[in-house]
């Protein structure tokens, strides 16, 4: 992973440079792994846009039924919905397009908006 001028990071994936975003930074989550070499990067794409998302850990892969979050709560940027896991816990579903948009906007502006 390389850093470029404005402090943002890029990742060389098979000869292509992809922007890298730290999910914990976008979501303001304390206590996450901040050293990308100790974390995992998930490559995601939305439309033509590809990016790497730095996460702590992969938990699993499964097919889920998406439930609306907006029915009782309101829209949250970067989250497209929720699902209920087998153990009854709620898991949030990422909105990759929304995350890419958030990444282009400094956090302060985003929270003030």
């Amino acid at each position, binding site marked *: 992973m390389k850093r470029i001028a404005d402090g943002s990071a890029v990742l060389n994936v098979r000869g292509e440079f992809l922007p890298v975003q730290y999910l914990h930074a976008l979501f303001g989550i304390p206590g996450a792994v901040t050293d990308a070499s100790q974390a995992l990067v998930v490559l995601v794409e939305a439309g033509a846009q590809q990016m790497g998302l730095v996460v702590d850990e992969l938990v699993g892969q499964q097919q889920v039924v998406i439930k609306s*979050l907006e029915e009782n709560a*309101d829209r949250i940027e970067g989250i497209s919905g929720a699902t209920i896991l087998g153990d009854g816990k709620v898991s949030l579903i990422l909105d990759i397009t929304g995350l890419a948009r958030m990444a282009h906007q400094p956090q302060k502006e985003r929270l003030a908006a």
Partner: protein
Amino acid sequence: MSTATAEKIALTAGTQQFLTYTLGAEEYGVDIMMVREVKGWADVTRLPNTPDYLRGVLNLRGIVIPIFDLRARFGGPLTEATEKHVVVILAVGGRTIGLLVDAVSDILTVENEEIKPAPESDISIDQRFIAGLIAAPERMVVLLDMAALLAHDLEKHPNTSL
């Protein structure tokens, strides 16, 4: 109380019933018609970029509902929720939400004239959110206007959850 008396109370126009719950030493009440159920605390899923008092979302038999920490909402510390804490599920303005409180205490039936307006000062909660006060023997119950509270929070954080 005999059934006949209970019915008489319920049928009297001008009385209201409130479910009361406690936060520390304070007692709050909410219109019982808004209460859907009361359940024990269970771990919630935190929502990103939302105020602290929004503790997260919970699965309530297949629907996802937001849980508010009422103590934190009114400027107190976050409640250290344990299994003994209680979530009061309310229907407010077409939404279902949960309030994290310390305990549910009582159901009060009060005459409308027993509900007093809040005094102008000496109250930590914004006046707009107090629907009234009930003076019962040796205690006082604060009636919150949940609809106003949620509408206000929505306006303040238009991009986040309520």
